[in-house]
C-alpha cells in the first residue's frame, strides 16, 4: 500500500472512531502540479487526500485559526519535520497544546515520499535532531553563496532591488505559521513604526522587521517564499538568521515544546562576539 493510501485509511479510521474531529491534509490543486490544503471532517471524504512530493506547504499554521482547538478535541494533520518543529514552537509559545495534534508524518526525499513514524510531536525528536545535524553541514544554495560573497553595499543594492518589487500584500505573513500575532506590528498605527506604503523604505522596514521577528523561530518551511506573488527570495533572509542563531547559540528552533526562545533565554556561556 502506498503511503497516500495508508494515511487515507488512517484518516478514515480516526474520523470514524471520533478520535479526531478534522484531518488537515493535501488535495488536488487547480493544476496538476499544485496541491492545496484540505480540511476533512467526514470519513467518506478521505479519498480526496493526496500525498506526494508536491505536498510542500507547511499545514501547521492552519491549526491556529481562532477557536479551532478551543473545544479540546484533537485534529490530525499531515506534517513534515518542519511541520512537527512548528508544532513544538507553537506549543512552546502557548499557541496550542501538542496533545491536541495527531501527526501523520512524512518526509520528502527528492521526488519520493517516505513515512515518518510517530503520533505526537514528541515522538519525532530523533528525526529533528538528525535534521539539525544536517542543517549545520548544509551548504548554501547558489544564490545564498553569491550573496555571502558580496560586500555590504552590494548586498544592500541587491535587497533594495528585490524589495522594490514588494507590493505589501503581506502574503508572506499570512502564509507563515509563526506569524500568529492577533495584531501584527505593521497594523499598529499608534505609532506607525513601519511605513505602510510600498516604497523602498517601507518595504525594507517591513521585510527586515519580519526577519527579526522570525530569528530563532523560523523552521525554513518555505511557505513565505512560495506565497510571494513577486518572487522575492525571502527564504534567504530567514536562512541567514537561522544560521546565525544556530552557530552562535546552538539554537535550532522547534527541538521540543519546552525549548526557550533564543531571544529570551540566557546562558552564562553565551558568546558575546557581537558586543563591541
Amino acid at each position: 500500500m502506498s503511503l497516500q493510501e495508508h494515511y487515507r485509511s488512517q484518516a478514515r479510521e480516526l474520523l470514524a472512531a471520533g478520535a479526531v474531529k478534522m484531518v488537515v491534509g493535501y488535495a488536488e490543486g487547480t493544476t496538476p502540479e499544485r496541491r492545496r490544503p484540505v480540511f476533512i471532517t467526514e470519513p467518506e471524504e478521505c479519498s480526496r487526500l493526496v500525498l506526494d512530493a508536491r505536498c510542500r506547504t507547511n499545514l501547521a499554521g492552519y491549526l491556529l485559526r481562532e477557536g479551532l482547538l478551543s473545544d479540546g478535541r484533537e485534529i490530525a494533520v499531515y506534517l513534515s519535520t518542519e511541520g512537527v518543529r512548528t508544532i513544538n514552537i507553537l506549543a512552546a509559545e502557548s499557541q496550542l497544546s501538542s496533545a491536541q495534534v495527531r501527526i501523520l508524518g512524512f518526509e520528502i526525499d527528492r521526488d519520493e515520499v517516505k513515512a515518518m513514524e510517530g503520533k505526537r510531536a514528541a515522538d519525532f525528536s530523533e528525526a529533528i535532531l538528525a535534521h539539525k545535524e544536517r542543517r549545520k553541514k548544509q551548504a548554501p544554495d547558489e544564490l545564498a553563496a553569491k550573496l555571502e560573497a558580496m560586500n555590504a553595499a552590494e548586498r544592500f543594492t541587491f535587497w533594495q532591488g528585490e524589495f522594490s518589487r514588494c507590493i505589501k500584500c503581506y502574503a508572506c505573513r499570512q502564509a507563515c505559521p509563526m506569524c500568529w500575532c492577533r495584531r501584527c506590528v505593521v497594523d499598529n498605527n499608534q505609532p506607525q513604526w513601519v511605513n505602510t506604503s510600498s516604497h523602498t523604505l517601507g518595504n525594507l522596514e517591513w521585510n527586515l522587521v519580519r526577519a527579526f521577528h522570525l530569528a530563532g523561530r523560523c523552521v525554513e518551511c518555505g511557505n513565505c517564499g512560495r506565497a510571494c506573488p513577486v518572487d522575492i527570495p525571502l527564504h534567504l533572509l530567514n536562512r541567514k538568521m537561522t544560521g546565525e542563531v544556530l552557530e552562535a547559540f546552538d539554537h535550532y528552533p522547534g527541538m521540543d515544546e519546552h525549548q526557550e526562545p533564543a531571544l529570551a533565554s540566557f546562558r552564562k556561556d553565551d558568546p558575546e562576539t557581537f558586543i563591541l
Partner: protein
Amino acid sequence: MARIGVFVCHCGENIAGRVDCSKVVLALENHPGVSVATEYKYFCSDPGQEAIKKAVREENLTGVIVAACSPRMHEATFRKACAAAGLNPYLCEIANIREQCSWVHENPDEATRKAIEITRSLVEKVKRNSELHPIEVPVTKRALVIGGGIAGIQAALDIANAGGEVVLVEREASLGGHMAQLSETFPTLDCSQCIMTPRMVEASQHPNIRLLTYSEVEKVEGFIGNFRVRVRLKARYVDPAACTGCGDCMQKCPQKKIPSEFDCGLGKRTAISTPFAQAVPNKPVIDSRYCTYFKNGKCKVCEKVCQTNAINFEMEDEFLDLEIGAIVVATGFQVQDTALYGEYGYGRYADVVTGLQFERLASASGPTAGKVQRPSDGAEPKTVVFIQCAGSRDPAKGVPYCSKICCMYTAKHAMLYAHKNHEAESRIFYMDIRAAGKGYDEFTRRAAEEDNAGYIRGRVSKLWEENGRLVVRGADTLLGRPVEVQADMVVLATAMVPQPDARELAKKLGIGCDDYGFFSEAHMKLRPVETATAGIFLAGACQSPKDIPDSVAQASAAASKVLSLFSRERLEREPVIARNNEATCSGCWGCVLACPFNAIEKKDLTDRSGNVLRRVASVNAGLCQGCGTCVTFCRSNSIDLAGFSEKQLFAEVMGL
C-alpha cells in the same frame, strides 16, 4: 490644544557658554503648541522655580520642558515645582542640553542647533504625555539579615530593639562569624569571645529575632517593602528541638581527626560537632562528608548515645518562604588563599601560619588553650616574624587594596605574644603602618615601645628552613640593606577578600559587586550603606575590608535605614510601569520569560458566564519596575510603558 512652556536654563556658563540660549528660545517660541518660551540664568534657583510656577498658573500650561542639565540632577526639583503650581508632575520633562550637548561640543553654532533639536523633540514628547499618579505599595515590616557575624548580629539587634521583626540567617551551625575566632581585640585587648558571646545570646533569645542557623538564602524575588525570600534550611541530622546540647554524641563520635574549620585546621573536630564551645545555638550538626554512617552505611554511634533521640539520619534540606520588607547583607569576608605566596612557604612549612591561625593559637578557646606553640612540634617559639601585606597592596596578586586591619592585628599579635612570653622577640616586616582610628596609632606605638616589637620597613623576598628554624630574608629599606632573621614561627598578615560565593549572592539579590567581589554601595560617600537596589543594605566586611568598630557602626547605620523604611505604612512608587493591551495580546508569554522581576502574570479573559476565552498577560503594578524589557520583547507591540510610551518616543524621535 497643547500649551507647552519651554524654559531654557543657562546653568551659569555651563550651558550658555556654548549654546546660544536666546536662539533656542527664538526657535521654540513659534513651534506649534508652545505658549511660552523663556530663558534664565539658573532655573533650579528659587526665583527660577518661581518663574516656572508663575507661567504654569498664568498661561495655564499643559506641559513643561526645562532645557537644562541631566534629568538625574533636577528632574525631581522641576516636577515638584510643577506639582506645586497644580500641574501633574509627569507632564514636566527635562531636555538635557548640558551633559548631552554644551559639555560635549566645541562648536557653538552646532551645539545651539543640537540644543534646539533636543528641546523640540521633548516638546513633541510632552504633547503626548498623560497624567500619571504614584503607585502605593504596602511595607512588610520584617527584615532579613544575611550573615550572623558581628555586623549581622548588630543590625538584627538594632532593628529588633526598635520593634521590627528580624529573620537572621547564618550559613554555619552557629552565630559568631570571624569575630568568634579572634583572641583579643584591638585597641583595648578585651577578649573577643567575652564581648561577642553576650551579643550572640541576646540575638538568639530576642523575641523579635527568628534565628535560622545552618541555612542559606536560596532565592530572592520582589522589591523594596515586598521581597519574597526562600531560605534553605540545610539538613542538620540533629533535631534542634530535642537536642539538649549535652555533647555525648561528640565525645563518642569515632571520626575525631577532621581538621576544624573554626580552628583554621590547627585543631581537630568530630563528624558530629558544634563549631566551638560557646556556639549559639549549642546544638551539633552532622557533617555528612565525614560521617562514618554516610560514608559506609554503618555506625550511628551518636544515635545510640543520644538520650533524647535527637539524631535523625533521614533528615533532608527544607525550604522556608518568607515575606520580607528589607534586607541587610552582612556576609563578611574570607582570608586570601595563601597558596598564591609560594615564596612565603605557606603549606610547605608547618610553622608558617596566617594571622587568623595565630588568633586561634593565642585564643583561650583555641587548640592550645591560648599557649602559643609551633604547629610543627608544639615548642614555644622564641622569635616570631610577622609579614604584613602578605597579599594586600599587591596588584600582581590581584589585591591592590589595603586590607585595613592587618597593621593593627599584627601589632596586637606582637603584644599578645610578648605578654604570654616575656623572653619573646617579634620582628615585623611592614610597608607602611596604617593605624588611623581612635586609639590606633597609640596602640601600634605601644607594641614597638613597650612590647618589644621590632619593626623592619621592607618586604620579604624569600623564606626557607635551616636547622629546624625558618630563615626570613628581606630588605630593611630604612637602612638600605638586606636582612636575614632566624625565626621559630612566621605569621602572614593575609589579605581580606570577599566570600568566594559573593558574586552568586549578588546575582540572587540583584545588587552589584566591585572588581574584587565586594558588594557595591549606591554612592561611596553619600549612600555608603545602601545598594543600588532599593530596600537592600550592606553591613560589615562584605562591602570592603573593615575592623570591628567600623562593621558595628555600619551595621547600626544599615539598621537605621531599615527602620526608617519600616516607619512608613506604605511606600510611593514611580508610576512608570508597563501596561498590556489585552485586545491584541496573543498570550505567548515571551514577556513573562523576559521580565526580570516576575511582574507579569497570566490572566484569563472570560465571557459573561465565566468560560475562559483566552489568556493574556497582565502586569502586576506593585512588582513592575518599569525597565521596559517586556516592551522590546513583544512582537505585536501590545505592551507599552507609561511615561515612555511608544507613541511618546516615536514623536520624540520624529521631532528631531
